[in-house]
């Protein structure tokens, strides 16, 4: 963990510690809420041209991952690239002041209005960040050690 990452974890955990204990265990009082991550619809896509004003790695509020604040004709747009290592600004070679073109769908995720970027175009690259269903490219599909429960009960 970098020191910045640690700081963000401390900050976000502090928030989580404040918010979670009372709600996380209030099992009997839980009520259902609708999913906030929207169903992606290519028919609702927009395209923006703009300049990167700020690059953020957001760990609270909106979806985790890399966000670009882009100054465009439509105003300042929060462009969400995704959460994997593959789409960090550094590894896409993005920098503040750079001109970009984004195709994506506006959505309210976790109370934040973000542009879910499907295609990011820079001066020398075109990056496919999501597929037509909105599934992030190279996203996580962890199985981890969950199969261990089966093994423990196995014939050994």
């Amino acid at each position: 963990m970098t020191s910045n990452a640690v700081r963000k974890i401390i900050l976000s955990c502090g928030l989580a510690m404040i918010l979670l204990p009372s709600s996380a265990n209030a099992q009997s009082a839980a009520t259902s809420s609708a999913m906030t991550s929207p169903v992606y619809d290519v028919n609702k896509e927009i395209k923006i041209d703009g300049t990167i004003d700020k690059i953020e790695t957001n760990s609270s509020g909106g979806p985790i991952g890399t966000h670009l604040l882009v100054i465009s004709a439509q105003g300042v747009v929060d462009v969400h690239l995704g959460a994997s290592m593959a789409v960090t600004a550094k590894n896409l070679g993005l920098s503040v002041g750079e001109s970009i073109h984004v195709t994506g769908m506006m959505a309210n995720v976790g109370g934040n209005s973000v542009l879910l970027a499907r295609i990011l175009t820079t001066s020398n690259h075109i990056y496919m960040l999501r597929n037509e269903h909105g599934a992030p490219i190279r996203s996580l599909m962890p199985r981890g050690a969950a199969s261990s429960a089966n093994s423990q009960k196995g014939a050994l």
Partner: protein
Amino acid sequence: MKQAARVFAFLVFGVAVALGVAGCGGGGSSPNPNTTISVVIFPGTASIPVNGVINFTAVVYNFTANGAVTWSASAGSFAGSVFTAPGTTGNVTVTATSQEDKTKSATVTVMVGAAQPVTVSPAAVSLSALGIQTFTASGNGPFNWTVTASSGADPGTIDQSGNYTAPRTPPPGGTVTISALSAAGSGTATVTVLFSAATLSGQYTFSYAGEDAGGFLAVAGTFTANGAGLITGGVEDVNSAATGIVENPISGGSLAVGPDGRTVATVTTGLGTVTWQVTLISEQHALLVRFDTSATGSGTIDQANPADFSVSAIANNYSFGISGIDSAGSPMAIAGRFLSDGAGTFPVNSAIQDVNDGGTVTQADLSLHGNILSLDSGTGRGTLELISTVPGTGTLTFAFYIIDNTHFKLVEVDTGSAPVLAGDAFSAPNSITLANLNGNYAFTVAGAQSGGPYAAGGVFTASGTGTISGGVQDINEQASTLHLAEQISASGSTYTLSPTTTSNRILLTLSNGSTSFMYAVYPTSNNSFEMVEVDNVVPVSSGLGFLQSSTSAPSGTYGFNTTGQTTSGEQDINGSISPVGTTGLTGYLDINETGSIFMNIPLANSTIVAPPGFGRSTFTLATAKPTSASFTFAYYVVDNSTVLVIEMDHVAVTLGTMAKQF
């Protein structure tokens, strides 16, 4: 596009923060520049008679040069690490203080009781797996020496001269009782059994999935451990854009086993040396994290049964679950089942699968069939192909590694424009009925939404006849929106055999009142099931579910593993966690966060809440300063040795498991 996706990740790892890995799974010098020394004493508690003797052991984590401790006690005396209790009853506080940092120490309380008719010495001792200790008894013999462990576990052996040999795995509770019986009466001693290199002996099958410089990484293989801390050989299949798709020999390696089972494995392969952090659960099973700066990932290690290394042994119905990326880099998951006829064929019309390719779902595909292409009866490695007409699949070729005839590991080895998938296959009932889901089931799934990473978990109650009477679930959407302990409602929740003509697949719908989640479910023979989401609520998710046989709070020491996504990439955590009282947790974590390594991170101020219902509750793991971090999880008890977990905070989207060590 797969190539492009991999190029992205290649760039990432090229700049990942590099922290070296050193030391061992137990004590040892620290690779963590910002982690402080901590001390652990074994045995952690003891009750002995007056004037009784304890052979103590201390482990110092994260020291720089001096791993020794200084012993002291509030009463009684020390000679080296051997403590002799005072001649009066009462509690004694024993302290081990780091000689390198005298501000760091650990204490245990020794309860000194009345003398026994026979005094056994030492009265308490910690002993490594397969370690030997000679006990003596006071007074006139002969003595009848016996050893017992709880729950019928292997207690080790003791001869009639008092020579005791510990078992390979710590028994439940971590201790055994030595008794010496004579005409004068009896006396007892307690042995705390610790993990050691002797715990791992024989041939093991392993697999893990994660990230490396090429992006998605999937590995499965086998190795042999000699019981003395060495890996003597093996083979693995690696599917990575960074290294290629390689059948990779394992020529050797070492296992540095710590007393709590946390182990650093250094594995020498044809592609270079890699490091795993392994948390031993038993001599048969362990949790694995790829633990070096070039890759991260999570998986398991299981003792293999070479008697099942034959095509004829693979004669069963198998339910399987595989996940990864498609040829364009989109998330992909498949669950299904096939019949292996014992002659290497998976016939058509005896197989079915559900494919979710980046949100494009093909339900109940009956074109699936396949073949075993090869099998090495020495290693248990084989190759097989799964063939179907589902777009994006076609013929998929896998290397597989047999654990036994009920379970084998799969990793895809296709070159060119093909998916990269990996997972497990488990033996399955010959036919599936609604009665295959009957009781409470704990489950976790993970995948991706348009906003980013997604995970869900819960418990539901199935009637055995197609109705769901209720349940509870938690959902983590991108660590942004947390749906905590939402009710699964009877209304709208159901399960059916579908298609009814084949009787081999269940379509499960879980409704929380506002959203219905639909999963294709493939039961196994072990009261569990593979599941893949087939609705359009979440583009892709998949996971596993398990019949719940306990709803009680976890009790004992557990190995811990989680894997998932933080804001900057994949995070994998292993650890060993023990209760402190009824609400506290202690232990150590080992973390690989996108190639940054953190070892021996002690927990502090960590808490757990007992389940109010459905075996579901929460716990928080907080690590000590200065590497301060906090992770809050919902957990779902499966049975008295297994717990599923899902992270429910605004830090990351991870999920995993806890498996009881002792």
